[in-house]
């Protein structure tokens, strides 16, 4: 059946602009998905959409009740309750950056062909962050008005600068004993420099550990080149070991596992099920199907590793269809993009994922700290910097926190990252759930605002939203229960540093 045409369905002359709260629409299967600025969404038939637009729904009709409950009928909206709801979902507007990415070194012992971070060889200790810079970066991070701080150790391979990593943990814990913020640490590592002694320290200090895993062993080792050993075996050995230690510590294994992130390369496009199976076999509960970034080496190797957005989406759909199939067989695994989007669409929950919120997270949600003290809008911003373009360098540690937050560049990025300022976004049904990344726009289209109509960022997210909307539209009770389970947000409280604890 063909999708209904809006211009044949609704005559502008007959629209009652006072009946419905402003909403956007998009054809999904044979019906329409509608959403409003408050983030409510529902499906309506073409006839129901026409009645809503014309204001021709009687109060006694079940449709009226259904649309009123979802805040689509202007006269039924409880303004005070919705204002509170809006403030809760947009709480990130009321405080500063939560995520502080510390690039501890440019050194790495891997030679990943798509590396986003433009790494250097292990002998280049001159690219390490010093203790002095690290302390000043922690001082800067603690000036955020956010009640929570996550210090994320990035690289290169951050464990190559182990001494400074430990120092940051100890110094931040000391500061937090006085300040009492919700402090967490996160390590993004290939795990090859891990030892039992270092693991003892990381577990003792409650540092969350994340790694990269590109799926099947042959592909992982082909694109994540490691000369000293079998990289896949080494990384997965430590993943299993860390998970064992979590069990020994009595942590809930549903919640506490090493988070592994794949990067989708061209060769992986043919093997979505192999990727999912590899993660499931390792006990992973979440898979984040990340597309190649336009940053770092990936920008240069795109001709050999890259692919079109349509190819990525075909891969994504096949992988998530398979994940759903596995769930029906009792395997607990989810896809991370889908979980984030579903949280916003059906759970009315804002997970504060910095790339999918409006305004985006550049500066006001995250800051990237370069080893030499430069401060970037984000991890992606410093990746652009590593490519020789300082467009996203907001300042240095010689600046004050206030100067960084009020810099002209910051303001420009916040404006660029606001969906209400984008021509296509303002009229998109997915606007309440979507967001911008000015750094991506800049690298792919030459301006921080980008043009959503031919942006691969927009296409990717719109495709995934469409895929999810279609699945929701046709979901049975079991599938809905599964999607709702994916949106369950259980905080990993174990990783919170206790205030007053030194």
């Amino acid at each position: 059946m063909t999708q209904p045409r809006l211009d044949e369905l609704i005559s502008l002359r007959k629209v009652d602009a006072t009946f419905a709260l402003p909403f956007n629409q998009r054809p999904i299967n044979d019906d329409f998905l509608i959403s409003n600025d408050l983030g409510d969404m529902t499906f309506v038939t073409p006839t129901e959409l026409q009645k809503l637009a014309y204001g021709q729904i009687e109060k006694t009709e079940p449709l009226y009740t259904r649309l009123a409950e979802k805040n689509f009928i202007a006269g039924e909206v409880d303004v005070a309750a919705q204002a509170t709801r809006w403030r809760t979902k947009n709480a990130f507007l009321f405080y500063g950056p939560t995520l502080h990415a510390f690039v501890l070194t440019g050194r790495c012992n891997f030679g990943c062909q798509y590396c986003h971070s433009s790494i250097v060889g292990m002998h280049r200790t001159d690219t390490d962050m010093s203790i002095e810079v690290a302390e000043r970066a922690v001082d800067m991070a603690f000036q955020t008005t956010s009640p929570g701080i996550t210090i994320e150790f990035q690289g290169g391979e951050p464990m190559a600068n182990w001494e400074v990593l430990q120092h940051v943990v100890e110094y931040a814990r000391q500061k937090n004993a006085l300040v009492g913020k919700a402090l967490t640490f996160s390590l993004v590592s290939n795990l090859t420099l891990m030892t039992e002694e270092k693991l003892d320290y990381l577990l003792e200090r409650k540092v969350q550990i994340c790694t990269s895993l590109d799926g099947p062993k042959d592909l992982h080792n082909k694109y994540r080149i490691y000369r000293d050993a079998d990289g896949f075996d080494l990384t997965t050995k430590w993943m299993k070991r860390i998970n064992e230690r979590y069990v020994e510590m009595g942590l809930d294994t549903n919640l506490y596992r090493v988070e592994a992130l794949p990067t989708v390369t061209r060769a992986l496009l043919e093997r979505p099920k192999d990727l999912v199976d590899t993660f499931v076999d390792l006990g992973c509960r979440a898979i984040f199907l990340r597309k190649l970034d336009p940053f770092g080496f990936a920008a240069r190797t795109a001709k050999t590793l890259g692919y079109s957005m349509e190819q990525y989406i075909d891969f994504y759909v096949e992988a998530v269809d398979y994940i759903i199939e596995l769930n029906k067989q009792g395997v607990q695994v989810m896809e991370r993009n889908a979980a984030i989007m579903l949280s916003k669409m059906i759970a009315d929950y804002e997970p504060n994922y910095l790339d999918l919120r409006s305004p985006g997270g550049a500066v006001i949600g995250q800051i990237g700290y370069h080893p030499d003290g430069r401060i970037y809008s984000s991890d992606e911003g410093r990746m652009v910097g590593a490519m020789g373009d300082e467009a996203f360098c907001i300042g240095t540690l010689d600046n004050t926190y206030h100067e960084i937050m009020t810099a002209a560049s910051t303001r420009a990025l916040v404006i660029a990252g606001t969906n209400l300022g984008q021509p296509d976004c303002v009229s998109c049904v997915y606007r309440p759930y979507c967001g911008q990344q000015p750094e991506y726009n800049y690298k792919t289209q030459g301006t921080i605002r980008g043009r959503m109509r031919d942006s691969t960022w927009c296409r990717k997210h719109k495709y995934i939203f469409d895929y999810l909307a279609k699945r929701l539209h046709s979901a049975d009770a079991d599938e809905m229960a599964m999607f709702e389970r994916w949106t369950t947000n259980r905080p990993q409280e174990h990783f919170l540093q206790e205030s007053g604890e030194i």
Partner: protein
Amino acid sequence: MAQHTLERFDADSNTAVLSLDAGIYPLDAVYGAAYALIDRAYVLLDKEARAEGKGSRFLIQLRGKIKLDQAAAQALSGEFGNELLSQALRRKVVKQNGGLIEEIVTQAIAGATGASLPQDFLDDDDDDLDFLDDPLGIAVPWEEKFKKDGKKNA
């Protein structure tokens, strides 16, 4: 006539020249669209008066940074047109939603800098505070505080 046209392409100078009715698009949109191409072309903007009553046209000269052929010049021209429309439409949208965007951005930056009043301050209902208390005597009028004792001066 189309809203923008690839007037000519000169393979020798690797240059495409586009023309554009100056009455349709705001100059800022033309600047913005031209700027979006500067990674691919050297850009020169000019304006050409036409016969009386016919207004004027912008001329956009794009000299490719890499070798262009006719198809590439057409593609660059199309890219310019798309960006131009996007810039113009964005201006319109921002004008329409400008107040709301400004409020959101201001709140976001104020929140990040701590410029807004903390909620616990607003919610403070400490009964011990009495704003009529004046332990330093700052509310006492100057004349009263420093008045000379009339009786003594008398």
